[in-house]
């Protein structure tokens, strides 16, 4: 049953773009159902979403890239064409993106200024990469420092999406010793709604899901304490991991090539950070739902959490101390023992003093003197 319902097509809208591309309404509804499910919205929302998105003006989007590796862009554009993720990408008006735009030099900057002027207060700003607060020369574009460009562009944005762990939490550039003085978007911009979509890189559908939510409802989805959309970052990798039953039974791989690893047992002892990492990898998976790191035999490295580069070795179990060396441990034990002896001595003298002043209790001592 193929219904190609002729919906009302309004010029300049997403709906028009879809029609031009020969996307049927049914196909689009299917896509919206998938998105609604991913965003944990009720199924009935799919129709409303399709309605809202198809009537929406193509959303002006400005994408700024700072101290980054382009992995986030790679992720969002990595298409198994034609995926629907790509499709919705066509539905927005990507007015500025260093890597993807054809224009260069002054023409490129001109495009950004034009988009900011035409859509003042309405455009969506996407940022990947962290911002150096040290020497502005560490990272600049067309002679403009990252900090200046961010502050200038954020001014007229409706909302900001910090894509990738660098933009959301500082990421690799901020890792110890943080030579560039890198900070996250949220450290600089305080007066705009910001949603963090961390991950190194984030899952493509998580990025497009957030965009679709913005197009449908004109606002940002419900977020957790770290500003991440709850629908994707609501649960840990560990809680949704298909290897979780092995963890519960205490069945662990001890090395990457032992019998237990071949049997697919839990990778906790090999350093898996799944228990402390909130992301949708275990359910949404990567590469069109093919697999995710744990399924491929490697523990989660916790890339969507703040400071994950400095959280100890990727191969050290979560239960191990992060920074202590054997000599530090020995020293701490010695200090602890000495402190213990001192405290014990003091406590004993307190107790001995209490004993010394104890007067034998007689029955007359059970009541108070009436004054």
């Amino acid at each position, binding site marked *: 049953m193929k219904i190609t319902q002729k919906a009302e097509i309004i010029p300049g809208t997403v709906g028009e773009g879809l029609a031009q591309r020969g996307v049927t309404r049914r196909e689009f509804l299917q896509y919206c159902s998938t998105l609604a499910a991913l965003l944990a919205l009720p199924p009935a929302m799919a129709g409303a979403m399709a309605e809202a998105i198809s009537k929406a003006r193509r959303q002006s989007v400005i994408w700024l890239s700072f101290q980054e590796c382009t992995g986030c862009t790679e992720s969002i554009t990595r298409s198994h064409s034609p995926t629907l993720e790509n499709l919705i990408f066509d539905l927005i008006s990507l007015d500025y993106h260093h890597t993807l735009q054809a224009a260069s030099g002054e023409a490129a900057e001109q495009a950004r200024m034009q988009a900011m002027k035409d859509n003042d207060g309405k455009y969506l700003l996407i940022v990947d990469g962290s911002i150096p607060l040290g020497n502005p020369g560490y990272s600049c574009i067309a002679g403009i420092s990252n900090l200046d460009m961010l502050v200038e562009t954020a001014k007229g944005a409706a909302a900001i999406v910090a894509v990738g762990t660098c933009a959301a939490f500082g990421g690799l550039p901020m890792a110890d010793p943080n030579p560039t003085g890198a900070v996250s978007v949220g450290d600089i911009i305080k007066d705009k709604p910001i949603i963090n979509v961390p991950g190194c890189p984030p899952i493509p559908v998580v990025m497009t899901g957030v965009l679709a939510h913005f197009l449908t409802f004109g606002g940002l989805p419900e977020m957790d304490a770290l500003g991440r959309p709850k629908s994707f970052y609501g649960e840990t990798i560990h809680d949704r991991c298909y290897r979780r039953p092995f963890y519960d039974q205490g069945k662990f791989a001890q090395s990457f090539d032992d019998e237990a690893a071949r049997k697919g047992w839990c990778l906790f002892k090999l350093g898996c950070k799944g228990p402390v990492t909130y992301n949708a990898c275990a359910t949404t998976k990567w590469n069109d739902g093919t697999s995710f790191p744990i399924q491929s035999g490697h523990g989660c490295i916790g890339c969507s959490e703040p400071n994950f580069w400095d959280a100890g070795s990727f191969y050290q179990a979560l239960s191990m101390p992060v920074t202590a060396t054997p000599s530090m441990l020995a020293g701490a034990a010695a200090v602890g023992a000495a402190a213990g002896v001192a405290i014990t001595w003091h406590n004993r003298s307190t107790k001995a003093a209490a004993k010394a002043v*104890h007067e034998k209790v007689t029955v007359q001592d059970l009541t*108070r003197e009436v004054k």
Partner: protein
Amino acid sequence: MSATLAKGINSFKEVIDAPIASFFSSCVHCGLCAEACLFYTETGDAEYTPIHKLEPLRRVWQQEYTLLGKLGKMLGLSKPVTDAELAAWEPLVYDSCTLCGRCAMVCPVGNDMTYMIRKMREGMAASGHAPEDLVGATMRSITIGSPMGIKWPAVLAQIKHVQAETGITVPVDSPGAEYLVLMSSMEIINFPEYLSALSRIFKQAGVTWTLAQDAFEATNSGIQIGASDLAREIVSRIVVAAERLQVKCVISPECGHAFTALRWEGPNLMGRPFGFEVKHILEVLDELHAAGKIKTKGQDARPLTYHDPCQIARRGGVVEQPRRLLNAVAVDFREMPDAGVMNWCCGGGGGVSANSRAEPLRLEVFKHKKAQIEAVEVQTLITACANCRIVMEEGLEHYHMKVEVVGLTELVAQYLVEDKTT
């Protein structure tokens, strides 16, 4: 001399030992102990959470024995424990804790709240915050010799009565006997069946036994009120008599805390091991029965159940013995839900039954025992503690339940095979 706050606080400092320090520092505030406490489950009042009843003691521990607490105290960040606070805690420590120990069984880190309440009462008593009735009972124990004010002539009257009834001579102050028999005031006043049953059982078993004129009372108010100096004096009467008469074993009667006082606390109070064994009467009966020294004939046809007294089963470890005895003399013995070490308290242990102020609360929490009895649909309730017995009789009366309470020793004696010729 009289009770003062300073004495109470000093006593808190004195009783805090390594177990208490580790209990307080390992509490994870999970609240599981509340669910195990009769007073919480029946009232839903979070004040009755067992660990909360210890709050003043915990504060003294923190202020005197922890580094941060000492600093806080020096800087005036933590307030000292006050008289008003101890007065507010008095009903929690004495009226709503029967020292039943059920909370200690469920604590995931193994904290023994009962041990701590027992120790905390030392400070409560020393600061004059013990219930009036318990003070009175302790006073009578020390000055008269028994918490209910009973003197030897009352025992003598009962002996005469028992001798007339059974035709068996009750030995008094007989040196070299195997067993020294003790009684609780409650048995002397309310349950003369106990002494009569014992006379017949021991005669049949052919064992020697005796009562002691200067140590017939097994109960120990010093333990209940929390005054170790007085508890020591009371327990020493028994120890002195037992050693004077050179008995092999002292039998703790059908009483809960008397067993705890003599068996577990006794040697610690005296600071030395005893020259005799201490056994609960059920242990002795089970041994005699297993050795074939006493035999039973016939079985009770009534459906009946057994209430485990907390100090005897949970705190005392006497769990299997009553069941072996009951199965020998009863056809239809039914276990209540949670029977054995997790049994629910009658609501009157640990001095609560001696404290008239606690009576309304005690009757309120008896609902749990009521539900347990109703679950097995019996009209006969067996137990092995005279205090549980009287508390349950009052509870059953209050809730208009037609259930008879019987002591296990008595029940065994009822089916005893007696050779009348010897």
